[in-house]
């Protein structure tokens, strides 16, 4: 298998409301890349299900694979979920900042959609030292678990759905 077998797609990060996904369908989007969204895997578990319901095929990637997609010109545009927005920045799903910076470097439009549910800004250590309820890290390891992060307006180059 080679990277050439993948075609460029929209990259979505965060779980949006039904209207956002229906909007993708209206735009005749057939397939999107989805970041799995550690620590809770909302991308893998919830977003993928919602997309499949609308007959949009999700292609799941781990959160560390986004850079590769940009490097190989496989990202058409980026959509990230936000919780709040003001004139300077948006409070977005963690991981949005890396997408914003990659979007800026590779000149790919970064758009925002509202997250379906409100989230806390920080999770617990156990959220990251465990995966799917199974412990992965040794005892004594601490965890830093941001769930949201600020995305400066300089990285938001597309539209913001209110």
């Amino acid at each position: 298998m080679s990277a050439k077998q993948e075609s460029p797609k929209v990259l979505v990060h965060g779980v949006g409301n039904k209207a956002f996904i229906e909007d993708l369908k209206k735009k005749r989007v057939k397939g999107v890349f989805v970041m799995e969204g550690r620590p809770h895997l909302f991308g893998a578990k919830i977003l993928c299900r919602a997309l499949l319901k609308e007959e949009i095929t999700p292609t799941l990637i781990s959160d560390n694979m986004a850079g590769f997609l940009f490097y190989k010109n496989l990202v058409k545009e980026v959509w990230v979920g936000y919780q709040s927005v003001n004139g300077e920045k948006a409070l977005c799903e963690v991981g949005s900042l890396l997408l914003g910076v990659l979007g800026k470097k590779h000149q790919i439009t970064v758009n925002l959609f509202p997250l379906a549910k409100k989230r806390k800004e920080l999770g617990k250590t156990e959220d990251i030292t465990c995966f799917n309820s199974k412990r992965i890290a040794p005892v004594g390891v601490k965890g830093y678990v941001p769930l949201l992060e600020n995305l400066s307006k300089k990285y938001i180059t597309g539209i913001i759905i209110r």
Partner: protein
Amino acid sequence: MDETLLPSKFRYIKVTNTKQAVDVIRQMKTRAFGQLLVVLNTFLLEIRNVRAIPVSPAGGHELPLLRRLQKTAEALNASRPTFPFFEITEMVMGWARDAFSKKTDIKATLERNINGYLQGIRQRRLERVKKIAAVIKDGQKVLTHCNVSGELSMAAQLCKEQNKKVAYFVTETRPYFQGAKLTCWELKRFGADVTLVADNAVGNLMANKMIDMIIVGSDRSCANGDIANKIGTYQIAVLAKEFDVPLYALTQPSNRIPKGEDIPIEIRQPEELLKSTGTNIAPKGTKAFYPGFDVVSHELITEPIAIDVR
């Protein structure tokens, strides 16, 4: 050592032939520097099995042995595409062919050269550990990704002996969790202060000035200084440039490939990403894409910390 079982189990895998060695590599039971050890030890294994080879009228034991080693080299070269297996097997086969043409004992030559080479590498790695420790200053916070085959943990130990207080942030490194499982385990064994982060939290760390430097390894180097490393290194490097965080890469320079774009990148099976310990993490119908490595341009590397492995 089966790296995929850590930290819950510590188990060695017995490898008795080339096929098993290739399986260990393909299944990622060991990776990075461990692969180099597997390659060299597989050659040692095959030459120790030499008694099983029938005597050839053309060249005694030597010609069949040379052919057998060539098959081993080809199998190892075909195991995974990104790591430069060919460069190591070619070196060993060069020694073997040289001994054959000089009508000297191939077995004795390879044992001597491989053991000498391994001793040299061990020494150079220890020297590099000192360089890594010298780069890390007292009070600094270091981010690392995946696993740099023990050298960071040895540097952490050295820093501790030098009374430097250092905190380490480790990315979990999905989907195999080499950061969460292996790097955290290694660092904790040396009593280091370790914090695990999701792969998507690296921008947050840098934007909030929570780290002072990044240290990563590399699986392959190019003539122009580009490297290939575990998937996720590229986005870390781009973020590091954006937020002005120095990025140090442990490299093994090579001129065989001109630039990063020419490095073959392994694309692994989607199931490895879609399943975790046998359980699906996404609903049926979801596809997955799993590139195993990415390429970092030399322009994004603040300073390579190199050792010569040739």
